[in-house]
């Protein structure tokens, strides 16, 4: 599906195109407003913003919702610079799901998308955050997200980027307090891209847990640097799994899983692999009539599925 068709088909609760907010849904259970408005009208939100926001959303899930929340932030014009601050707060005991799309509507817009996000999961809450990126080949994209998981909360963060920009710098920090659980599933398909991923999970609280899974593909001269670390400060469990696939000879992948243990009672593990597409798999699929390119695409699709 093309980027433009995705935007048309998407009816999000929050829609921003370039630097203009086009739609904000009214929901009984959820407060949705521009971040700039939250800064002005809700004094307490200022502690979560770095400075007065220029763009982005504020979503406050106050009551239980039985529908997925959705946001859509697009670049539609050439040479646009977005500087967003997104804040999402899920109140105590609430279970929520958010589908979040950030995309360029055309392939050659040379846009810049800077997004600083903070997501606060209050005690006993849970959030499934499905974050999809779909960019043009000349865009520069810099998301910097921090998740704070309060006592007993849980987060499943699925990030997929099958259409990467020219430059992608992702920073994620997850702070897990007592008995909280986070699961990160990252799938990035590098196509002629420079990609830097910096992911840090801090197991701050007792009996907190994290599982991070990264699937990276390097195609067409891509350079990918992926740093994934877990810092255990208390009795906790953490696991990192970084698997990468090199499709061409010109790409380069650096994958560094790091375990930093400050507690004797913590249990941290990691596994990492970088390999090429299996010739046996390709020949097998080609014997079913698929071209070499179709076979590679299919193997990659399967690899990126977590």
């Amino acid at each position, binding site marked *: 599906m093309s980027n433009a068709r995705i935007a048309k088909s998407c009816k999000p609760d929050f829609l921003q195109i370039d630097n203009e907010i086009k739609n904000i849904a009214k929901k009984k259970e959820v407060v949705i407003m521009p971040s700039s408005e939250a800064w002005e009208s809700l004094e307490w939100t200022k502690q979560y913003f770095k400075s007065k926001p220029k763009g982005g959303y504020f979503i406050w899930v106050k009551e239980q919702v039985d529908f997925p929340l959705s946001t859509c932030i697009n670049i539609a014009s050439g040479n646009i610079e977005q500087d967003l601050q997104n804040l999402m707060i899920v109140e105590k005991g609430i279970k929520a799901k958010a589908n979040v799309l950030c995309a360029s509507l055309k392939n050659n817009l040379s846009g810049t998308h800077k997004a600083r996000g903070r997501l606060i999961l209050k005690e006993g809450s849970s959030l499934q955050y499905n974050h999809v990126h779909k960019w043009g080949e000349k865009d520069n994209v810099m998301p910097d997200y921090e998740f704070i998981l309060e006592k007993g909360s849980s987060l499943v963060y699925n990030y997929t980027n099958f259409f990467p920009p020219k430059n992608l710098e992702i920073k994620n920090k997850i702070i897990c307090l007592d008995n909280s659980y986070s699961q990160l599933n990252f799938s990035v398909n590098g196509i002629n891209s420079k990609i830097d991923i910096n992911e840090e999970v801090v197991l701050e609280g007792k009996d907190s847990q994290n599982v991070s899974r990264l699937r990276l593909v390097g195609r067409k001269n891509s350079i990918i640097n992926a740093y994934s670390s877990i810092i255990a400060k208390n009795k906790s469990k953490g696991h990192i799994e970084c698997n990468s696939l090199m499709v061409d000879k010109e790409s380069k992948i650096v994958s560094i899983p790091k375990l930093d243990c400050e507690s004797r009672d913590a249990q941290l593990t990691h596994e990492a692999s970088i390999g090429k597409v299996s*010739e046996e798999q390709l*020949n*097998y699929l*080609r*014997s*079913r*009539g698929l071209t070499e390119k179709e076979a590679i695409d*299919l193997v990659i*699709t*399967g690899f990126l599925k977590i």
Partner: protein
Amino acid sequence: MKLLQIKNLTIEVEGKKILNGLDLEIKSEEIHALLGPNASGKSTLAKVIMGFPPYKVLDGNILFKGKDIKKDKIEDRAKKGIALAFQNPPAVSGITLSQLLNKMSKKEEGIINEDIINRDLNVNLSGGEKKISELMQVFALKPKLLILDEIDSGLDIKKRQEMFKLISEIVKKNKMSVLIITHQGEILEYLKPDVINVIIDGKIMCQSNDSKKVLETIKKYGYVKCKNCKKL
């Protein structure tokens, strides 16, 4: 009509000759069986017909419908009508059989197994399930020449017999030619080959229309007697 003609085929892998002046001819709607001891070149022949690397053709020709296919890519051979059911198909994680069939733009023919179709391709499948998956794929291609590489291994008697009946029905209905590579003779009772071939040291050493007699001979004397067979 001659569908497949292999003439004086000599194949080398890493400096070692695997097929050594092999001749084989399969006509339209003809069923051939290929028997031979371990490492005699049976599976190599199947992969060479399909065009798999790294086999290096030193000599000879492979003609399909009268045209040399030696330089054809794997996918081109598949599109021309050659299909191979693998003895040990590789697992492809994250892709279901259904997705592959969609990508092939083919619908399964005759065999539909709802359980397998939505599972990852050859991942954690039993031996029997892998065979069913292979048959669903190759029959979906509606090939002119179907190569079955040890399709009867790893199955219990009941499943084997059910599968053989089904293969027989689909092959007849679609007027396929078949090359059956087998260790066991049981499949031949259902598919009733027109010609039985015995391969030894990369060469067809015996060819006969009397499969029963050949099987009995192999059972009684092993492949030693086939080596000296004068039927060719």
